[in-house]
């Protein structure tokens, strides 16, 4: 399935917290020092506590400190085609999480759970919220999850037709973001 508008949300490990102001500072600092992407602006929506709190807008992708499902996390929202498809999108999302984890100003207080993420297909035309979409996406997804976890992962979907196609992916074992990235690097 040719689908490039993919959103991946990784959640913060409780009790880790990242405030919208901290995200704003970090995202603003990324803009001039990320030559492989065109990052444009940072938008502040912290007045909507259950929404996209802070958005780093880019040409290829947006990065959002997000609380729209009442859980704080980082959303990597791909907007342009990406070589490597879903697998590479996962790598990009994890890299962004790791970058926040290593942000000097945040002093190591942020950590993301690698064992769970929300996948949203941000394209109601090509990927309606149906089982057929799930089937069409399955080969890519299975391959990506095998590379990521090399073990079983539970998938659940909210079938509400008004929602975009979504899958919550969970593993029983816990994984650190750094370890998952390391695994990708070794396999590459």
């Amino acid at each position, binding site marked *: 399935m040719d689908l490039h508008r993919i959103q991946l949300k990784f959640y913060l490990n409780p009790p880790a917290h990242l405030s919208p102001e901290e995200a704003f500072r970090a995202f603003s600092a990324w803009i001039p020092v990320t030559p492989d992407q*065109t990052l*444009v602006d940072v938008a502040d929506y912290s*007045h*909507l506590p259950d929404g*996209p709190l802070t958005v780093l807008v880019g040409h290829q992708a947006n990065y959002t400190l997000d609380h729209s499902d009442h859980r704080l996390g980082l959303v990597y929202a791909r907007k342009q085609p990406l070589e490597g498809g879903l697998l590479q999108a996962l790598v990009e999302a994890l890299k962004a999480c790791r970058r926040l984890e290593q942000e000097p100003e945040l002093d190591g207080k942020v950590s993301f759970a690698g064992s769970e993420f929300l996948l949203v297909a941000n394209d109601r035309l090509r990927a309606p919220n149906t089982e057929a979409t799930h089937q069409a996406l399955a080969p890519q997804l299975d391959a990506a999850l095998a590379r990521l976890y090399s073990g079983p992962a539970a998938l659940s979907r909210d079938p509400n037709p008004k929602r975009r196609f979504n899958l919550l992916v969970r593993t029983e074992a816990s994984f650190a973001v750094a370890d998952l990235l390391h695994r990708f690097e070794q396999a590459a």
Partner: protein
Amino acid sequence: MNPPGTWKEKLAGSIPDELGREIDIFETQMHLRQQGKLDEKIFAESRLRRGVYGQRYDNGQRFDGSQTQQLRFPTGDLTKGPDTLWDAPGMVRIKIPFGGLNTAQMETLADLAEEYSDDILHVTTRQDFQLHFVHIEDTPDLMRRLAAVGITTREACGNSVRNVTACPLSGVCRTEAFDTTPYAHGLAMFLLGHPDTQDFGRKFKIAFSGCKQEACGLVSMHDMGGIAAVRVVDGVEQRGFKLYVGGGLGPVPYQAQLFAEFVPAAELLPTAQAISRVFARLGEKKNRNRARIKFLVASLGIEEFRRLVAEERAILPYDPRWTAYLGDLSGHDETPLKPAQSLNGAALPEGFAEWRRTNVYAQRQAGYAVVTVALPLGDITPSQMRGLADLTRRFIKDTVRTTVDQNVALRWVSEADLPDLYRGLAELGLAAAGAGTVIDITSCPGTDTCKLGIASSRGLAGELRQRLAENQLFRDEAIEKLHIKISGCFNSCGQHHVADIGFYGNSRKVGGLHVPHFQVVLGGQWTENAGSFGLAVGAVPSKRIPQVVTRLADSYLQDRQQGETFQGFIQRIGKKAVKELLEDFTQVPAFTEDPSLYRDWGDTRVFTMGDLGIGECAGEVVPMVHFELAGCEREAFEAQLHHEAGDYRLAYLSAVSAMAHAAKALVKSQFQDVPEDQGVIVSEFRQRFFDPELHFDRFSKSIFAHLIRAHEQPLAAPTRDQAHQHIEEAQLVIEAAYSLYDRISAAVGVPS
């Protein structure tokens, strides 16, 4: 799984043919521009007329806190309009005539915000929606999906008839003459794409009100506006409108003038058409800043304008659409879903009483209420919008209205349902109290996304909203009624002129660094359809505005007389006293002493383009020009005091003098011995700066033209409004002089 196809294929049959064709043409133009086969200016006008705007960083540059960085977009130099790079995500404005939305439209808007923008829907001060950071390639499909639910972005921007607004209480208001909804809709549809509205020099905004005394549709600040009126002719009741023309905010606000005491409903559309023709034929085309109809009406005089419109009306070829819509006025009538029932002692949730006090309006139809959903900064998430659509279906059938306060109104709520509706809204995070109160602050996008923004109006509005909500002072009944409105620059998109307390963004240079400021504008009137405009009392650093608001509120509460409005209070104590009241906030310490003042709200970057090194070196030196311009500000302020005292001639003379002295300050940077004679000053300024446009930016010419005009066309007996306009113009000329001096300094490499 079947091939996905395209939105065009999927929605075939759902989109009206004409609209579908137009979107196809736009898509073709987009591809031609992409291939370099269509001129960028032509494409720019085409996209603007379809609501597709540029945003702040679309010229490919962004200030990162220490220097301006180039944003390297993949398509390189390809543009979609002058200085607007192809890849730069932009804004799409979506017209919602009279603010009326149905649930299918609400859900589509939510889908589009998720798929094409940054997950936020923004309600504007003219009942539109805006989506930000939309990629140009996505706009044709976005338009198709809107068209499929009956919404168009056509003429949402550009030199065209913008969204036709109307009071959100139309049809349920306790004081209206009649429901203006079908007339607003009828006129909007008639003028949309009409050949007589395609050759305007500037935008044209229309509003409808059901009654005179409320804020309602804000008719007085519109290019054209109608207030519902009823008269009896030969025993028969006739509907019509008290019609106004030539109002507008912008840098220099104009109150609309009465065009006709009563225009019968059957004459509304042809009269608007005739007005459009006169505006298209005689309105300014070259100078954008003099091109609104307010300037045409002011220069012709209302009598001559009326005569020209009557002449045009007499020769208009008959159009059956003028009255066709009157045959189905009830088509817009809304009916309730539930029977009218009172609360009758139902258990009330926590917070309900306060919410009901501020957000619920009893309709004239007994047992029903209008619920205003207060949206912070006009923003709502897609999930909230979908939830609101569900609540709409559950409690009130199918329609809601956006408001000029950037909120959403649910009408025809049975009073018995209010607690359950409140609970539902609370689950969505939409049950905040305070709609229409002092904490319900209106703001334009400002520096967040607007290319013209100078200071962060949204950042300030968000901060104020939070602080005021936590401060008991702002719960006082007298304070709670006040309106605060904020614009990011002098262009007034936040409607600061008609607020009790208004602000517009500007900046001042201190020690070589820019400090974000807001000009404080006091005493505007929101009621009476935006009945009068406030006047500036001085600029204060942005970070001190919350203190300004608190002090003003405190002072009003302490010193007001019985029943005195805030506007009356400001008039009584006088601008001089107000200026003194705020004087200590205007002093700016050095960067090293308080760097927070040098950053704007919600932004971590230092505001200025300069760097700290230069600022420190220049910190002790205040250029002579700044002293001179400060003197001009004082003169402009004195003009306000004269205006307040009713001496309009002296007010006018002081304003003109302030403009001349601002020019003198600039001329002195080249010609030290310029004499005091205003004629010589203006002549020198013209020769050295104005004609060669030396260091002018795109606004300079039109702003300094106020100075030239004031000198060339002196007024012997200025009216109150003329004096007011000259004071506003003087303020603009002074601001422009500050900016011009900054550019001169930068060009010659000296600290300014």
